[in-house]
């Protein structure tokens, strides 16, 4: 099994319901609502028809920054109760403990976890649209995990990706002087770019 075993201790691919034809949708609601005066919000939509997947994410946040985003193994969005160091914000590390590792980074190529890595959408009012094939996604998901430090995990061969009850987490806002120095970030990224800003849990809808 790929990925860091201790990291995946709470987040197990066995809990996933494999994706089936249909549409999965979630409203993206604010995390760290006080991070700036334009309270961000958005939506995410995954549409699967046979082997063909379309992913749409839109965000209204008025912040001209890059937005790291991913589909995660976990099934709960972080809240201020998860602010374990009580600095007033749920930072990157605190959020990852809740949402688990990413299973699909929503970057420039969702057919592969590594291809298109770190190429995330940016800007105010971000709109993200990508297409992929499920067979490629799953084949990539079953490869050996070459980098266990990237907070992206692999599955055991045979378990396909699932979207139902999985978390979408989006990061990134402009720097604010009141952000505490205690904010953790992804690798050496500036903390305000790693700060989670919106989150949602995909549900299959009857459309």
């Amino acid at each position, binding site marked *: 099994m790929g990925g860091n075993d201790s990291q995946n201790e709470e987040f197990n691919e066995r809990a996933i319901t494999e994706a089936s034809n249909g549409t999965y949708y979630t*409203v993206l609601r604010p995390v760290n609502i006080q991070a700036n005066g334009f309270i961000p919000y958005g939506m995410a939509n995954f549409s699967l028809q046979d082997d063909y997947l379309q992913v749409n994410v839109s965000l209204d946040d008025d912040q001209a920054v890059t937005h790291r985003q991913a589909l995660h193994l976990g099934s709960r969005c972080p809240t201020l109760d998860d602010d374990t160091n009580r600095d007033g914000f749920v930072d990157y590390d605190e959020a990852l403990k809740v949402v688990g590792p990413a299973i699909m980074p929503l970057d420039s190529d969702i057919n592969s976890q590594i291809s298109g890595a770190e190429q995330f959408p940016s800007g105010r009012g971000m709109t993200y649209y990508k297409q992929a094939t499920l067979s490629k996604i799953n084949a990539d998901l079953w490869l050996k995990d070459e980098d266990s430090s990237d907070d992206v995990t692999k599955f055991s061969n045979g378990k396909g990706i699932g979207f139902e009850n999985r978390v979408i987490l989006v990061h990134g806002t402009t720097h604010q002087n009141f952000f505490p120095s205690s904010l953790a970030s992804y690798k050496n990224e500036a903390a305000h770019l790693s700060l989670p800003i919106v989150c949602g849990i995909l549900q299959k809808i009857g459309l």
Partner: protein
Amino acid sequence: MKSFLVVALLVLTNAASAESVHSVVRGNVGEDHLVKFHSGAVKFIAHHEKEKLLNYEARIEAQDEDKNFNFLIEENFEPTRVSDAQIKTIFQNFNPYMKRKSECSDRAHVWAWDEFNRNGTKSEKAFLMLTDTYIKRHRYKWWFHVAPMFTTTSGQKKVMDYQFFDRPVSFTEWKDSLVFSKRECVTDFRFIDYNAGADQTQDCYVKFEPMYYYVPADIGARENGMPRTNWNLSQVNSSRARAFFKGSAQ
């Protein structure tokens, strides 16, 4: 095959039409000016952009949408009391398919109407209005926010702000999330006085109104002897068209 959601997402849903201006607050020397729109949005105008400021001041228009509406007389409005289980069901039934940059007033109006139309549930609206000092301090992008509020059988008030919260919340939790200082809001006031400038040592003002009230200007109209005592279905339909994808749940 594309779902209607995919098609809708690919369409630019926010037309660049001119928004109607509620008021303009001129800043002190060197300060930005504030333009407040009827939608609740706030725009900051740099202090030196005089022409832009004058253009917005020229667009201020009195709200006249309801001037010919025949109000029925309903002297006392009593919200329907619902059980905790019903509160959860009501929230889960809210239409989640909101358009990009939809306005809170439109969303709240449709959600409240849809529940009233489905089950006859009478709800209220929680209007949160921010002071100019608060807006400037936080570069806040709205001067007001509104959400439906329902009453439980035990008398608790639950705000259902589906865009920002994943569950019904108490008024205090709702207010504390949006008012970063978590200060109490002024409740005993006239909208006319808030509109004229308010007490700028405060951060926020709040009003609870029957579900028929759409924007804060309706509160001012009531204070001028024109209460809202029934639904304006044309307004609900317009709100739905602006805020939600066509064909989505009702």
